[in-house]
Structure formats: C-alpha cells, structure tokens
C-alpha cells in the first residue's frame, strides 16, 4: 500500500530526468540570449537587443519556475532534524537529576529506583524529544 512499484519508480525517474534536462537547456539558452542582448545594446542595436532581452527574460523565468517545481517535487528527501527521545529522572528529596535515553515503558511520574545520592525515590519527571543533528 502506498509504495510505488520498481517499474513505476524507474518511469518516474526518467520523466524527472527529461524534465530537468529541458529546464537546464532552456536556462542555458536564456543566458545565451541575455549575453547576446547585452552585446546588441553595446553596439546600439536597440531593436535587436530588446527582442533578445525579452526572449532571455521570459526563458529565464520559465526555466527557474520549472527548476523550482523540480526542487519541490513530492518524495524528495530533504535534510530533517534528527531527534531522539530523552527521559529525565529526578529525586523527590534532593537535587539529583539525570537525563538518559528514553526506554520503552518510561512514563512521567513513574518511580524509577533509588536516588544514588540520598537513597530516596527517583521519579521520571520529563520525557521529550531532543534534536541531536540532521539527516
């Protein structure tokens, strides 16, 4: 369910590659037109320069839009924050506090053995996600 087949993935990759290629070709041509436009203007060929400039700008806008769509495509793997759950345990009597990795079965206000400092009860006071990096 919800998982594309291998052939479906291959077709999708081909379509994406062709799309990217077209975008890059349009981008290159647009840059070329713009360079030509600058040259034309430098030789006072205003009419020619305007045509090239207009074509270049339209092409540049189109190619950048196509590339932005490509970058935002669904299924793209982006760097995400890597989080891990941590559990904080505290002594009910002294200032003892310890943060450790969450283990299954922990819950807030669960009694968690004896305090290594004063020997009184230690309870879980907080369970929360902590950012440990990016992936």
């Amino acid at each position, binding site marked *: *369910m*919800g998982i594309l087949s291998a052939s479906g993935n291959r077709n999708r990759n081909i379509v994406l590659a062709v799309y990217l290629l077209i975008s890059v070709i349009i981008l290159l041509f647009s840059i*070329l*037109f713009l360079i*030509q436009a600058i040259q*034309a203007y430098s030789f006072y*060929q205003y*009419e*020619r*320069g305007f*045509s*090239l400039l*207009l*074509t270049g700008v339209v092409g540049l806008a189109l190619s950048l839009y196509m590339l932005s769509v490509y970058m935002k495509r*669904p299924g793209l793997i982006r760097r995400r924050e890597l989080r891990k*759950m941590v559990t904080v345990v505290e002594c*009910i009597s002294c200032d003892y506090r310890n943060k450790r990795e*969450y283990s*299954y*079965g922990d*819950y*807030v*206000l*669960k009694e968690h053995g004896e305090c290594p400092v004063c020997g009184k009860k230690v*309870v879980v006071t*907080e*369970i*929360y*996600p*902590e950012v440990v990096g990016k992936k």
Partner: protein
Amino acid sequence: MLSIQLVLSEIGVGGEGDNISTVLQIVFLTFFIVMMTYGQKIQAWMMLKNISLSVERLRRMRDEARIHAVRYLKEYSDRSDVEPILDRILQYFWIQPTSLDPTGIVGKIEHILNLRDERIREEVAAIASKANPIQISNIENVIEIGISMDQIYRIVRHFYEFGKKTKSIFIVYQLEAQLPFILQEAEALMGALTAFENCQPIGDGAGALVAARFMYGAEKHRIAKDTVYADVIIDGRTVSVIKAEGPGGNVGKPDQAIARLIEEYGRRPSIIVMVDAALKLEGEETGEVAEGVGAAIGGIGVEKFRIEEVAKKYGIPLYAVVIKQSLKEAISPMNRKIYDGVYEAIERIKRIIREKIPVGGYGIIVGVGNTVGIGQ
C-alpha cells in the same frame, strides 16, 4: 560566440528583418485570446494539479496510519483476521442527533459518543486479547488517528474529484484555501502515532501533567470512567485534583467527576480551576501560560456544558489556566517548552488558590487533556 550569433540569425533572432518580434506578437495575441476564453479553466487545471499532489500525500499518510494500526494491533493479537476487522473499524462514523428541537441535544450527543467509544473499545479488546488496559487505550488512540486520517483523505478526495468533474474554480479555490490547514492537521496526527504507540506524553497532556504533579504521592480514587481524583493540601487549603487515569491514552470524564464530587459527595468548592492546553495563535510562544475564567476544556462541548451547568447551579467560580501550543505540538510528543509552561502553570494555580480560597477552605483543580505517558 560568432557561430552562436549565426545560429540566432538563422532562426531570425535579432538579425535583419527580426522575425522574433512578429512571432512574439502572435504568441502574445494567442495567449491573450486563450486566457480570455479558457483562463478560468486553465487556472482551475493548474490548481487541481497542485491539489492532486496534496491528495496523494494524504493518501500516503492514510496508508501509513493504517499500517501502523495493523502492526500495533497484531503485536497484541493472536487472530489472523486483524486487517479486515481494522478496515471495518476505520470506517466507523457517528451521526449527530437532530438539532431541530435543540432541547436535550447535549445528552443525546453524549449518549451517541459514549456508544461509539464503547463499541470501538469492545472491538479492540476482542482483537487485542493480549493487551492490558493501558495498551488497549493506546491502541484505541492509534485507531482513532487511523479513522481521522481516513476521513480527512476521503473528504479532500471528494472535493478534489468534484472540482475536477465540474472544473468549477469556486470549488477548487475553497479546497486550495483549506488545504494548508488540513495538511497541518494530518501531519500533526501522524506525529501522534509514535507517541501513542510508545506511550509517550503529548502536548495536549499539559493539563493532565499539572494535575499529576499536584496529586503525586497522595491517595488516588477512581471517580468516573478512566478518571481519578486525590485530595491534597496546598498552603492550608484542601484541594481535590482530578485527571484522567494514566499512563494510558485517556481523556477521562472530568465533567462527571466534578458533578459527583459536588452533588454526590456534597462538597462545596470555593472555586474550580481548570487547566488545559490551548491552541496558540501564530506569533505566540509555545508554553506561554494565560489565565482567564470559564471552563477550559475542548472537544465537542458536552463536557463543557455539564461543567458550566454544575458551576452555575452552585454558583462556583470557574477559573481557567491554559498552556499554549500549536495543533502539531498538541498531538506530538511533549516538547521542552511545554514542560516549562507546566511548571509556570503550577505556580499560577497555587497563586489562584491562595487568593481565592480561604485558609481551611476547599477547591477543585481539573487537569484536562490526554494523559498518555503521564502517570499520577
């Protein structure tokens, strides 16, 4: 560079007798005519393309939620027909009672909702025979997420297909305007899945955590379905603290607990303080604490109505303390900022108790919210 110029001249760009101006004029004229005639349809088509991506995303989320529910259920079941039963449960619905004659509608809604909850719980208990009551509560919550995801997907798909069929820009506009909120809610629900599976506290449990910290160490009594209370002394005042029974994913029946304390046990509180998580507005800080008056409790309104009724009947002031968070944070594992909000809320409640209850007097604190991952 020269060869490129030659190529451009060949195709009539910028050369003698510049063809491109003529071509551009024709293109613009065609574009103008096309946009005049088919503008709305093109716009609708483009919007539908965007919506289709969101619909696909919602479908994947729905499938993922189902996979989670199946896996979680199978962990506690020895039956082989878990999937067909789950698929049946995922499509459960409830029909809101008629409001043509609104008298007594709250009782009717409560009755229907209780029936729905009981039915789901019975089904879950029948399938997950190896689960204890805490795990059954958590399975119920995972299934509730599956039901919500299924409904969200079906409703969005309905309007998408309808918009596609009619090509009506107005239907498509409405759907596109709503989609960011719908996707935010769907993502938040997906974040809650792992929290319920692992029995970790979620942001919505902030109110329950406040109550849990007040009642820690005191003797607890069950007072209503999935609901406990404990009497504690705070600065010389006796306070009954009510919360849903944890650490399973319960919200309890705080309205019934309050009514029972007052009407059956004959207690007369000077005040009732309700503490709950509240949705923050964009720009507000997570964990911000605010005070007010009234019944701080969400949901469809049945419990709110009951609490307001009791408070009005006995003339008891209702005070509210809320801990702000986004919708996503409310159903995701509780973050550090919300814990800070919880500690501040505790201090605020102590201050309210000192100010509003005389020494030797009596009051009630109600911690509202899902108590998954929070004991007492």
